[in-house]
């Protein structure tokens, strides 16, 4: 990355803010620069865009702030939710409101910096807790995922490395990433509209993760319909 990604941490527990800052500092490539920390969203509301990505604790002063995500996204921020609330319904709401990724507090050390970098380039990043929420999703409006996408999500959620998932499914690690990214992109194509979701989708199409035709016809279809053979073959 030629330029550092700038990030703000919105978190009401100073000790957590400290921890996140230390993860950012210890990134070997120094790819992320922390420009702001705050205990609430007031500072972001009042000024021009301060940074590329916001690391947002979903619970500030005892209140869930998932409903504030669309506002942040509309202001041009990419949002990475970082929360102890791993409840799938909350994760889904977070993503639907335009957050780029969800990272649970336990996943922070391994995934937060990578998720921030992915968000800055509008690329999908799916943590295990996010895979769990996608697998648990029972909403009628959920996107239709293919057998392979579901299998890759399941094995990733179960705790396998992506390389192991690939061996299990007899595909390359890259194809596993592609399956998971495509599932994530399909989610970006459903629910409420947000500039961040459009950007993620556009980048996924540009990167060849998903074809435009794979998204639109399935927007409102039940899962069983899309499991049919008409779904495009995976890339690679």
């Amino acid at each position, binding site marked *: 990355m030629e330029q550092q990604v700038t990030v703000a941490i919105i978190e009401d527990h100073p000790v957590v803010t400290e921890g996140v800052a230390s993860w950012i500092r210890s990134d070997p490539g120094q790819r992320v620069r922390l420009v702001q920390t705050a205990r609430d969203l007031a500072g972001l509301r009042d000024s021009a865009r301060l940074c590329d990505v916001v690391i947002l604790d979903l619970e500030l002063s005892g209140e869930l702030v998932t409903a504030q995500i669309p506002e942040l996204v509309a202001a041009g921020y990419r949002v990475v939710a970082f929360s*102890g*609330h*791993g*409840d*799938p*319904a909350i994760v889904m709401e977070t993503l639907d409101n335009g957050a780029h990724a969800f990272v*649970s*507090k*336990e*996943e922070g050390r391994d995934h937060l910096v990578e998720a921030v970098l992915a968000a800055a380039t509008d690329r999908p990043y799916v943590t*295990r*807790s996010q895979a*769990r*929420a996608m*697998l*648990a*999703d*029972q*909403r009628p409006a959920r996107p239709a995922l293919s057998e392979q996408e579901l299998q890759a999500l*399941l*094995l990733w*959620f*179960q*705790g*396998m*490395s992506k*390389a*192991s998932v690939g*061996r*299990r499914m007899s595909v390359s690690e890259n194809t596993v990433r592609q399956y998971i990214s495509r599932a994530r992109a399909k989610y970006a194509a459903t629910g409420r509209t947000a500039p961040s979701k459009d950007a993620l989708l556009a980048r996924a199409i540009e990167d060849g993760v998903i074809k435009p035709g794979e998204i639109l016809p399935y927007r409102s279809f039940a899962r069983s319909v899309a499991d049919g053979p008409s779904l495009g073959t995976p890339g690679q």
Partner: protein
Amino acid sequence: MTAVKPATGPPRTAQPATAQPATAQPTAMMSGGYQRAFTIAVVFLVAGWHLAGAGGQLLHNRHAYASFAFQGAMWLVMALAIGAGSVLVQRGALGWRPAWAVAVIAAVASTAAAAASPAGQMLAVNWAWGSAGWVGVLVLLRRRFSELACFLGAAALGILSVQLWDGLHRTDLAGFLAVFAWSTGAQVAVAAGVRALDVAASQAAAAARREEAARERAATAQIISVARHGRWLALQESAVPLVAELAAGTADPGDAQVRVRCAVQAARLRRLLAEGDEVPGPLVHELQASADVAERRGVAVEIETAGPLPPVPGPARRVITDAAIAILTAARSKARITLASVAAGIAVSFVADTGAVVMLPAPGEDVAIEQQQDDGMLWAEARWNSR
């Protein structure tokens, strides 16, 4: 990872996955029991009418008929139709074919008996007035009301056409109208009454189910509370001394041994905190029990669920927990257990640093077990298929 909480998804699935089917069954049984009782009452009513009412009239007027044998045969056909209908309705909801077959046989027999009655004396001697209607009530009872209405109308039209054919005797017509009014009225009243009782029974059963579910929730809350208290006591013995050592400086956070102890206690604390009032089901409880044992050995265990989980029968659960015990015993420092609902069942998977392949229990009880070893990490999945 955060939680042992079941992934509840949208509000409508927020009910514990296992509680639903477990309590739905008694409800169905209960409401089914009332329905059977109502069905038996209707069977007795219809059979009683045919024996005492129609049969009595048939015997009383045996000399008035041109052919008593024919009338007797028609009476027997009706009796057989009632017998067949009674057996069929006891077996459950009737399809339209058998229901209408029985009803049409009864209507034909009743119309034929009326047609063979001496013209002009129908009012006095015809035993078959309204009999077909009762058979219709019996077999069409739990089908659409309009079907019963059509049938009663058709049966009445049959008798009326016989009268027209006979030359429309005024007394008979008056008698027909009177019999039609009271018998059809009684038949419709019985059908409507049973329908209302069915509704009341299902409401009573639903209320009983709610009460039962509340009782079950209370009992489960009690169990959880006891388990939580037990775990809290265990924490007093394990986590509290560790924190005290860290505070006093006697335990060094740089020491790998101390870090393992911290990881284990952190996993336990997370589980304790994450355990909500929702009941993840007996399988999760059993896996938690296995995890507790492993944690005492210094293995950090996390358990996660995705999606509402179907209830797993006892024998299949035993195969899964046996696999869990084998893997957790072989795990060196960490293990992750996940439960996810899949197409026709549940996938319970284990990822642990066992270092080698683990001897797993033989699959069976509809549980398939697979494992894969990668760089010292074991992945195993026990998949229970309900089909």
